[in-house]
């Protein structure tokens, strides 16, 4: 494929952004006529790139030299190998479907064109991120997708909650990005270049290198340079991919319109951290410590997300916590060296999680922006397409046999099981989480779609399926949620990571059946709790009050941040305002004015209006000058 076509993949959405963004005033409700074809064009080219990459031809396309300073040359370029190609197809597919879905979801919104402009900009940034061939380009677009996320979460900026959610997402990501930036600088410091290929080629030479962390204060603490680089970069991933302890922004980001929850906060941007770890596999492989950090963080996040999702009542928040949990799976897989499995799950998850979000969005629209599942119920006959696609998405999420999630999750669990005793522990946690996942995803289905209708009687009469622009993406994604398991993604990705075929021994069979059984048990328990005898769940919750509270209050992480960071910051700001701003800065300004006023008052005393006083002044002056003249 010609280089120009590769360049067009990110360029098309960017052009759409420019057109819709700058001309939004004139093309307001026709914005989709520009954005949708542009993204579909990218999708088509991405599929071509995928076929090309599948044929073993990697593309490396230099764009231009951004800066040259001494020995440092930074070039922008595109690099497409199977890993990138798979991400390209994921991003453009979900983006296209979300673009189409948006036509229906955002119809009549006064920010219609603005919304399309931002999702086109996001698509461009995300494509550039995955196609980056050096760390700086990765970082720049890493920030750009964060910016788009901020802008889109705050799309309905009249709402207080949307504004604070956007700010929260931005600030929390800033913590992670700071780590990322430090890691990037350390790469530059160590290797003298930011280009992937040069860094990877030299990485092995630095395997034993150490760096003294306490040098500035005269101490000695030798740390492996590569470990430090990997951990710092991973801090960026913790922020972007919503890993514990920086996961708090993702559930709040659900304040944004549902299409972006599907696009940014489920399928693409939040997976950037996983992608980054996979992309930098040659570095991570050299640092066992960093790998363990990655795996442990992922496992903890996986368990945390799933346990919180059990008790939430907001339909989007349940799906959001499930995203946190599934991202934990992927990160854990990468941390255990099972990059193929992690990326496999990333791709299948992209399909079924986008589906779950878009289906939730369809429910939300049908119920006139009702998001609480306790006020739904009995929707399955009124919203059949939404219901069935939601069931397919939930089955895939729960790892039900022969859906895509089943294959990819098993790949992760088997990969974990076969990587040492640490991996075995994590695999067992993963199995446990699989059971929880099945339970909460079907809790959502049963509570929202089954049983008696608890919908506000106001809207109950006219619940109907949304327009075809919204149901079409649901159907396509439902198809993909199943089909993604059969197209040989692991085999496609294997050349990138050079791993052996997953071990299909007897152990893997045990794991596979255990995961399946746990998944089915989870679904069955959800059925018993929420359909057969609805009282059980509440009784259990009352009986295990502390556990239920822990889950319901999201492990008190937000409260902890509030106590430890937010409130002290506000107090500090308060004190700075009262003392430094009012005291010193205002004090200085007002002090100058007051000094001048006093001086004026003082000088006025000499202006008596009495000619004789002036004459006395003159005389004294003359005497003074004369005296001085005579004395000196």
């Amino acid at each position, binding site marked *: 494929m010609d280089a120009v076509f590769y360049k067009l993949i990110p360029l098309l959405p960017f052009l759409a952004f420019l057109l819709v963004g700058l001309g939004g005033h004139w093309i307001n409700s026709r914005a989709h006529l520009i954005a949708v074809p542009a993204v579909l064009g990218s999708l088509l080219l991405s599929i071509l790139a995928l076929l090309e990459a599948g044929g073993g031809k990697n593309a490396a396309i230099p764009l231009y030299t951004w800066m040259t300073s001494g020995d440092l040359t930074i070039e922008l370029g595109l690099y497409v190998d199977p890993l990138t190609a798979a991400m390209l197809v994921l991003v453009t597919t979900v983006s296209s479907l979300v673009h189409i879905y948006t036509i229906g979801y955002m119809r009549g919104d006064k920010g219609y064109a603005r919304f399309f402009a931002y999702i086109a900009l996001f698509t461009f940034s995300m494509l550039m991120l995955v196609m980056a061939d050096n760390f700086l380009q990765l970082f720049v677009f890493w920030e750009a997708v964060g910016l788009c996320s901020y802008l889109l979460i705050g799309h309905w900026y009249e709402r207080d909650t949307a504004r604070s959610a956007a700010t929260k997402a931005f600030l929390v990501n800033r913590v992670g990005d700071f780590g990322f930036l430090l890691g990037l600088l350390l790469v530059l410091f160590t290797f003298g270049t930011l280009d992937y290929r040069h860094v990877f080629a030299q990485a092995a030479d630095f395997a034993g290198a150490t760096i003294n962390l306490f040098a500035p204060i005269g101490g000695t603490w030798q740390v492996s340079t590569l470990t430090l680089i990997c951990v710092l970069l991973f801090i960026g991933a913790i922020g972007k991919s919503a890993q514990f302890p920086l996961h708090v922004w993702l559930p709040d980001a659900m304040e944004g319109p549902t299409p972006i929850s599907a696009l940014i906060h489920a399928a693409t941007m939040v997976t950037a951290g996983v992608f980054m770890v996979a992309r930098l596999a040659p570095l991570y492989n050299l640092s066992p410590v960093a790998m363990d950090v990655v795996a442990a963080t992922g496992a903890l996040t996986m368990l945390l997300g799933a346990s919180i999702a059990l008790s939430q009542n907001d339909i989007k928040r349940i799906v959001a916590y499930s995203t946190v949990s599934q991202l934990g799976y992927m990160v854990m897989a990468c941390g255990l060296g099972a990059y193929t499995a992690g990326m496999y799950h990333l791709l299948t998850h992209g399909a079924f999680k986008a589906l779950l979000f878009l289906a939730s969005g369809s429910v939300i629209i049908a119920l006139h922006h009702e998001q609480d599942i306790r006020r739904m119920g009995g929707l399955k006959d009124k919203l059949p397409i939404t219901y069935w696609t939601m069931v397919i998405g939930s089955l895939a999420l729960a790892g039900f046999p022969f859906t895509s999630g089943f294959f990819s999750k098993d790949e992760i669990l088997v990969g974990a099981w076969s990587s040492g005793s640490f991996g075995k522990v994590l695999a067992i946690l993963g199995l446990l989480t699989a059971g929880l996942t099945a339970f909460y995803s079907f809790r959502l289905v049963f509570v929202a779609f089954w049983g008696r209708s608890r919908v506000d009687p106001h809207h109950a009469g006219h619940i109907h399926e949304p327009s075809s622009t919204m149901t079409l993406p649901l159907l396509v994604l439902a198809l993909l949620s199943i089909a993604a398991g059969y197209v040989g993604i692991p085999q496609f990705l294997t050349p990138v990571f050079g791993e052996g075929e997953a071990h299909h021994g007897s152990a893997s069979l045990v794991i596979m059946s255990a995961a399946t059984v746990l998944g089915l048990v989870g679904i069955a328990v959800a059925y018993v709790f929420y359909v057969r005898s609805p009282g059980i769940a509440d009784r259990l919750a009352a009986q295990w009050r502390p556990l239920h509270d822990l889950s319901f209050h999201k492990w008190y992480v937000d409260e902890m941040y509030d106590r430890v960071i937010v409130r002290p910051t506000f107090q500090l700001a308060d004190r700075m305002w009262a003392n430094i701003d009012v005291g010193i800065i205002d004090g200085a300004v007002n002090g100058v004015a007051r000094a001048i006023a006093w001086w004026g008052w003082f000088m006025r005393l000499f*202006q*008596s*209006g*009495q*000619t*004789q006083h002036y*004459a*006395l002044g003159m*005389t004294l002056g003359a005497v003074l000058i004369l005296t001085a003249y005579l004395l000196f």
Partner: protein
Amino acid sequence: MVPVSYYVVLSAIVFTTGLVGVLIRRNIIIILLSIELMLNATNINFVAFSYYLGNVAGQVFVFFALTVAAAEVAVGLAIIIALYRNKASINVDEFQLLKW
């Protein structure tokens, strides 16, 4: 011959008298008179040095000073009359118009 220092001392005494009169008296006419005293003190100096140095320019200068003084008194008295018409007083404490 009377030494020049005598004239200078006399002139200083007259000048100081005039100056003190300007500064402490409240009656405008007295102040005007005191100004005349100061002018004449300088005249004494001019004449004394003119004679002592044998240079007539000093005495010429005194004539000018006398002329100017006469004109000044005329203007001064006119101002005093104007002031008196305003306030029915010639006490300088009453006149504080040059303020702020």
